[in-house]
């Protein structure tokens, strides 16, 4: 078998590769140390400039890569960890997938940095914000560029840390801090799975470096669905569950909306949460060896997509709706991975990054204009006041709803076509999810931008379109959301038009060897494909009309807080009481155990021993000090008696 990954030794290019993650790190250090000392203009220049530079270098690297025949290579810098048989290098793997992720992360990252410069301009911790968000860029780039699982893990933890820091950015609010802690702890549960998966990979393949592991896996003789492969892939998937907010570890993501809106857009919608998908995709050769795991992933994915979409129907906080929509879309991506539609999954990651970042930034613009009001019950009629935001938000909504020719249509349609091939029931549920997505997104649009304004007079006076630094990213993302779909034109419009599929084909080289049947291209006849497309568009349009009738024609407004709701409405309004369930079944028992251990083990045993030693010393000293009487005669007597005793003992015993 031909080697797919070549080592690389071109000093200048290696330096460029290193600069991509290094520049945001420099930005982090400068902005972090200069918080409140540097001028805000300077901070935004450094924050945005470093990321822009990373993006430009990534573009250059991408052009160079395609010009040189698209051959994947590793860039080794030094031997990072060397223990016994284990050699872990600090090195990058540059291939199609990495470059795609790099372009997405730095490109969207730059737009969001630019947006933040406007959005956060009134915040006193402006420098701190840019420092954290730059650190996030560094970690995320490390995650996607690393050439072994340990480096991915370092980036993985780094983005988790930044997520924690940024959710709790306004750390004077206890609720926000609790949300940050929740996100961190839930991610930790997933990370444990990921870590165990890495250990098992090392035990099985004797290495953690991608080229070696994948080459070994391609030669794997244990057969399809061996226990160890299922264990590895399931453990890695547990990590993905935590990071990408899948059932059962998804409840942190909606709470993560406590962070500033650009953070929600960058970390909790466009990039970090797709790390799980990247990881599965990167390990595609391992996953094709374990179809059972794939089935689990598909089920978890569709369940998450459906559950989150139903919750999204009844939420009234603009960011919460988007958060549940993100969870739901992530479920879609995992569904695609589960049915081995790897291309569709990464395609949806890409288009989702465009339109979800756009939607979040649009929501941020609305919140900015509404003086931090996030409840859509108090909005309405904003179309007139925020024309650019409205238009771009509408494009994003059309994209997520899957209306052609916007980006979401292509990716979602391709994804659902693969699911149709795999399992008709899952396709039906996927379609239902698609219907709900379309409905709740247009519910959001109609309640926010149509009708009459329902807020206070003060808010009405304050309404204004956002500054150029905020609208520019919106416009760029709106353009991307419109044309992004043309990267993956389905076969019905012409053979070999799917740019993304052709581009990404080499990354499945090892998987092809390991289990060729699993990565065989989709063969679906054109009539079926037309039909599937027609159905999904029709469903989306019906949902839009339904939302229009309910919220524009009939001018319905969601019930105010405290109104009695119907049982089902109440259930989904309260997110199926999942938080309460976790509280009762996991958090409370752990708290109870902790308090028992605290009372018995800590207070009685540990404290008893420690304090007992102290008390013994104090008590015996208190008694012994009376021997120090100050009488010289007594001292001398003791001395003489002692010496006599020593001599006596020495004479008779020694």
């Amino acid at each position, binding site marked *: 078998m031909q080697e797919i990954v070549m080592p690389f030794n071109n000093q200048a290019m290696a330096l460029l590769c290193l600069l991509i993650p290094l520049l945001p790190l420099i930005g982090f250090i400068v902005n972090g140390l200069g918080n409140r000392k540097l001028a805000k203009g300077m901070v935004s220049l450094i924050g945005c400039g470093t990321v822009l530079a990373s993006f430009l270098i990534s573009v250059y690297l991408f052009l160079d890569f395609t010009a040189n025949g698209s051959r994947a290579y590793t860039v080794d810098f030094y031997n990072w960890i060397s223990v016994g048989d284990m050699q872990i290098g600090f090195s990058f793997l540059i291939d199609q997938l990495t470059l795609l992720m790099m372009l997405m992360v730095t490109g969207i990252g730059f737009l969001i940095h630019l947006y933040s410069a406007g959005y956060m301009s009134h915040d006193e911790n402006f420098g701190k914000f840019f420092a954290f968000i730059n650190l996030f860029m560094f970690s995320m780039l490390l995650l996607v560029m690393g050439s072994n699982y340990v480096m991915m893990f370092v980036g993985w933890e780094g983005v988790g840390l930044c997520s924690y820091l940024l959710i709790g950015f306004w750390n004077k609010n206890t609720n926000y801090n609790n949300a940050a802690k929740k996100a961190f702890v839930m991610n930790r549960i997933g990370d444990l799975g990921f870590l165990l998966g890495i250990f098992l990979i090392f035990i099985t393949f004797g290495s953690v470096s991608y080229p070696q592991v994948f080459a070994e896996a391609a030669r794997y003789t244990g057969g399809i669905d061996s226990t160890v492969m299922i264990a590895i892939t399931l453990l890695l998937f547990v990590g993905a569950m935590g990071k990408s907010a899948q059932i059962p570890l998804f409840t942190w993501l909606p709470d993560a909306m406590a962070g500033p809106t650009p953070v929600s857009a960058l970390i909790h919608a466009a990039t970090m949460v797709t790390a799980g998908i990247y990881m599965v995709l990167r390990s595609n050769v391992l996953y094709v060896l374990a179809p059972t795991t794939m089935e689990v992933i598909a089920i978890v994915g569709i369940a998450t997509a459906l559950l989150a979409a139903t919750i999204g129907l009844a939420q009234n906080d603009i960011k919460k709706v988007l958060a549940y929509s993100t969870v739901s879309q992530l479920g879609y991506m995992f569904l695609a991975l589960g049915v081995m539609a790897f291309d569709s999954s990464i395609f949806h990651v890409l288009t989702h990054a465009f339109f979800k970042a756009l939607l979040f930034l649009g929501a941020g613009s609305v919140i900015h204009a509404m003086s931090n009001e996030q409840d859509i019950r108090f909005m309405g009629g904003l179309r007139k006041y925020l024309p650019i935001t409205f238009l771009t938000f509408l494009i994003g909504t059309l994209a997520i709803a899957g209306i052609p020719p916007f980006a979401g249509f292509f990716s979602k349609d391709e994804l659902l076509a693969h699911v149709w091939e795999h399992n008709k029931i899952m396709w039906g549920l996927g379609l239902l999810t698609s219907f709900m997505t379309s409905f709740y997104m247009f519910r959001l649009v109609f309640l926010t931008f149509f009708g009459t304004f329902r807020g206070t007079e003060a808010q009405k006076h304050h309404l204004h379109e956002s500054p150029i630094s905020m609208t520019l990213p919106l416009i760029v993302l709106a353009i991307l959301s419109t044309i992004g779909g043309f990267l993956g034109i389905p076969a019905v419009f012409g053979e070999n038009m799917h740019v993304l599929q052709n581009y990404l084909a080499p990354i499945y080289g090892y998987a092809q060897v390991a289990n060729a049947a699993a990565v065989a291209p989709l063969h679906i006849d054109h009539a079926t494909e037309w039909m599937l497309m027609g159905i999904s568009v029709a469903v989306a349009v019906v949902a839009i009309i339904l939302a229009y009738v309910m919220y524009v024609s009939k001018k319905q407004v969601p019930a105010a807080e405290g109104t009695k709701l119907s049982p089902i409405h109440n259930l989904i309004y309260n997110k199926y009481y999942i938080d309460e369930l976790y509280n009762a079944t996991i958090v409370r028992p752990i708290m109870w155990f902790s308090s028992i251990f605290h009372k018995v083990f800590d207070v009685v045993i540990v404290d008893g021993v420690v304090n007992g030693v102290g008390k013994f010393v104090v008590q015996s000293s208190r008694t012994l000090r009376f021997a120090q009487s*100050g009488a010289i005669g007594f001292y001398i007597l003791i001395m003489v008696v002692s010496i006599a005793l020593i001599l006596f003992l020495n004479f008779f015993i020694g």
Partner: protein
Amino acid sequence: MNQIPEIIRTIPLEYYLFFSTALFAIGVIGVLTRRNAIIIFMCVELMLNAVNVLLTALSAYRADANGQVFVFFIMAVAAAEVCVGLAIIVMIYRNIRSTDVQLLNHLKW
């Protein structure tokens, strides 16, 4: 043994041992029982000299000069020690108008 002069051998070694032991015991008892600092000091000297006698006697009986050399060192050190010791006693006397060691019991607990 034959190098040892007759004049020394007229008194047996045991006598020196008993003598110096008695001297040392008197010194110890003096230190333990007396209260006057100067007397205690003299008793300490007594103990030192008991040791000196023993060293000299053994040195002579074993025809080894080391012991006698050592005695000179002890004497020199004792002389220096007497200087310091007496100076301390003078200072004590100036402070408490007495040389009774029983009164010096403030340094306790």
